[in-house]
C-alpha cells in the first residue's frame, strides 16, 4: 500500500462509548458496534493506517493475565485516579488459546485499509504484574516473549500487515535494555510483516543510546511534552537531533497530548510540534519519508470520545498544512 508523506495513524485505544460495558478482553456485541463505528470514522477522516480502538479491552496487561488463566489482584494506582489490576504469574506461562485474534479479524474485515494488530510487549507484561513463579527476570520476560510471539504469528497468519508491540515499560528498568531488546527480538524476528514498537511516558534519554538497535521497522514514541519544551530544554530532542532515529528505522512521532483534562490543541500548536519533529528527525529527504504522525498514546485516558475525535481532526489538519508546505 502506498502511503503519503507523513502517514497518519493511531496508537490503539479510543474512549469507550457509554454503551460498551464489561469488556475484559472479549469481543461482545457492544464492542463490535463500537469497533465498526470507529473504523468508519477513521476512514471518513482519512487516517492512513487504522487501529481498532480496543473497545474489548479491560487493560492492556491485565487482559493477557486473564486470558492465560492467572489470578488478578485488586486495583493499584498508576497516577491521580487511574488504576489497573496486576495479574500474578504463579505458574509457567503458556498460551493455550488466541488472545486477540478474533478482535483483529473482525476489525480488519470492516475495511480495505490496513488495521494494525496491537500486542502488549513482553517487558511491559512482566513489569506490570507480579511474579511468584520465575526465579529470574530473564526467565519471566523471555517466557512472556514466547506467548506474545505465538499470538503475533497467529495474527500474521490471519492477514495482519502491521504488528505493533506496545512497550510503555521500556524505560522503567533502563538497566535491563538488553533483556528488553531480547524479548522484543523474539517477538518480531521472522514475522515477515512491518513491525512497530510503541513507547511512552518514560525517561527516554536513559535508553536512547540503545534505541537504534531495536529489532523493529518503526518506533512509535510519545513526544508532545518534549516538543513543547523545545530543543533548548529537552534532552531527548537534543539527543534525537544529534543521532536521529530515522537513520535506523521509521519513527512515528506522538504530537497530540491524550491525557485527561488536557484541552484540544489548536492546529497552530500541532503544526509547530510537527515542525520541531521535522527539524529534529528529518535532516534529509530520506529521513523525512521515514516519519509518521500520530497521538502520544491511545486515547482511552482522554475519556471523552468527542474530545478524542476533535483532537484527531486537529492532528489531521495540521498534517495537511505541513504536507502542503513540503
Amino acid at each position, binding site marked *: 500500500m502506498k502511503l503519503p508523506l507523513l502517514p497518519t495513524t493511531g496508537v490503539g485505544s479510543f474512549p469507550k462509548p457509554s454503551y460498551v460495558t464489561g469488556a475484559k478482553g472479549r469481543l461482545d456485541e457492544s464492542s463490535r458496534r463500537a469497533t465498526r463505528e470507529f473504523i468508519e470514522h477513521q476512514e471518513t477522516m482519512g487516517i492512513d493506517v487504522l487501529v481498532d480502538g480496543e473497545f474489548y479491552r479491560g487493560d492492556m496487561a491485565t487482559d493477557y493475565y486473564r486470558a492465560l488463566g492467572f489470578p488478578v*489482584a*485488586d*486495583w*493499584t*494506582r*498508576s*497516577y*491521580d*485516579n487511574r*488504576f*489497573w*489490576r*496486576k495479574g*500474578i504469574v504463579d505458574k509457567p506461562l503458556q498460551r493455550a488459546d488466541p488472545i486477540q485474534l478474533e478482535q483483529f479479524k473482525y476489525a480488519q474485515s470492516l475495511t480495505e485499509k490496513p488495521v494494525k494488530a496491537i500486542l502488549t510487549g513482553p517487558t511491559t507484561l*512482566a*513489569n*506490570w*504484574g*507480579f*511474579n*511468584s513463579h520465575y526465579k529470574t527476570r530473564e526467565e519471566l520476560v523471555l517466557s512472556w516473549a514466547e506467548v506474545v510471539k505465538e499470538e503475533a504469528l497467529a495474527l500474521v497468519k490471519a492477514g495482519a500487515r502491521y504488528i505493533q508491540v506496545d512497550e*510503555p*515499560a521500556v*524505560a*522503567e*528498568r*533502563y*538497566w535491563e535494555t538488553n533483556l528488553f531488546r531480547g524479548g522484543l527480538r523474539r517477538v518480531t524476528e521472522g514475522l515477515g510483516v512491518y513491525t512497530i514498537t510503541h513507547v511512552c*511516558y*518514560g*525517561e527516554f534519554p*536513559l535508553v536512547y543510546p540503545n534505541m537504534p538497535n531495536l529489532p523493529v521497522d518503526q518506533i512509535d514514541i*510519545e513526544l*508532545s*511534552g*518534549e516538543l*513543547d*519544551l523545545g530543543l*533548548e*530544554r529537552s534532552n531527548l530532542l537534543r539527543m534525537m537531533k544529534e543521532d536521529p532515529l530515522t537513520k535506523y528505522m521509521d519513527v512515528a512521532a506522538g504530537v497530540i*497530548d491524550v*491525557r*485527561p*483534562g488536557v484541552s484540544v490543541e489548536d492546529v497552530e500548536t500541532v503544526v509547530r510540534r510537527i515542525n520541531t519533529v521535522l527539524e529534529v528527525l528529518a535532516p534529509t529527504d530520506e529521513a523525512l519519508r521515514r516519519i509518521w504522525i500520530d497521538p502520544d498514546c491511545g486515547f482511552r485516558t482522554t*475519556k*471523552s470520545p468527542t474530545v478524542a475525535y476533535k483532537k484527531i481532526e486537529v492532528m489531521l489538519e495540521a498534517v495537511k498544512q505541513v504536507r502542503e508546505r513540503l
Partner: protein
Amino acid sequence: MRVKKEHYGETGLKSTLVGPYPRVGSECGDKLRRELNRLYEGKGDPELVRSLMKDLTGEVVHEMVAAGIDLPNSGLIDVHDELTWPLEYADGVRFGGMKKIFHTNVHYRQALVNSEVRRKKPLIGNLYKAALEVHPAVKVEFPGPFTMAKHSVLNKDSPYSDLNDLAEAYARLFRDELSSLIDAPLVQFNEPSMIAPGTRIEEIGIVPDLYSKMLNGFNLSVAVWTFYGKYSPNALKILLSLPIDLVGLDLVWDTEVDALLRKTSSHDKGIGFGVIDSGDRGHIQFEDPSRVLERLSKLVGYVNFEKSFVSCNATLEHLPRDYARRKVALISEIARRINK
C-alpha cells in the same frame, strides 16, 4: 532537635509507613474512585469528592492504627502523584508531560518552572486534620526538595541558574510550611533521588547544606527517607550527616547496606528500616517475620533502636489494598516482636 517520642508511645523500635496508602479496596475507596471519574467527566460533585477523601483518610489511618502501626501517615489520599504534588500549591510552576516514577508504572507530572517559586497556600490541609481526628500522632510527609528539583525542568526565563538553585527554592517553599508543623511528631521528606540509579554522588553533595538552610531555627523532628536504590559508603555518610533525626533506608533494594551500617555506628541518627517489600519490583511474597527479625537483630549495637523505625521500603500503593493490609500487619508484628 529530638525525635518526639512522647507523641507515639513507649520506647523501643517503632513501626511506620511510607508514602501514599492504597485508595481503593474498601467501599469508601471504591466510591471515591467512581466519583472522581464522574467529576472528570463533568458530572461529579466536588463537595462529595472532598467528603469522601476525608472519610477515606479517617478509614486508612484507622486501618494503620488498628493494625498496630505506631506512627501512621495520613495516607496522602488526595495527592496526584508522590513526587511533585506540593507544587500544586505554589506559583511559578506549571505541570508538563507525564513521566514514570523511576522503575515503576506509576507516573508523576514533570514540573516546568517559569518564574520565582512561591507558596501560595498551605500544603497541608484538611485531610491531615482528618487524620489527627483518628489518631493524635500522625507524621507529615513531603517529597524532598532535592528529589523535586530532579523531577523539574527550568524554563529559560526562570530565575534559577540550575537544579541546585531550584532545590534551594523548593527548600524555602517548605520553610514557609514548617512553622505550622511544630506540633507534628515527625516531618518526613522522601528523597529517593539521592540513591536512585542514575544519580551521581557529586550531585548529592549539596543536600546537607540544603537541609541545614531549610531546617535552621525550627525545633522539629525530621526524617529523610530514601528508596529505590543502593547505598555507596559516601552516600550513606552524607545521609547520616544530615541535620535530621531519622534516616530511612531501603533494605529491600540494598541487601548489603546492613554491613555498611555496622561500619558507621558513630552517628546519632535513628534508622528507618525499610525492610518490608512494598511490591515495587513485582514481588508479591510476604516476608517471614523470623527472617526479618534475624536480619535486624544483627544490627543491635550498631544502630540506636530506641530512635528507629521498621517500615516498608516505599509506598504500599504498588500493592492492592488487601495485600497492603497484610504488609502493614507484618510491619507491626516485627516491631512488636523485636521489642520483646
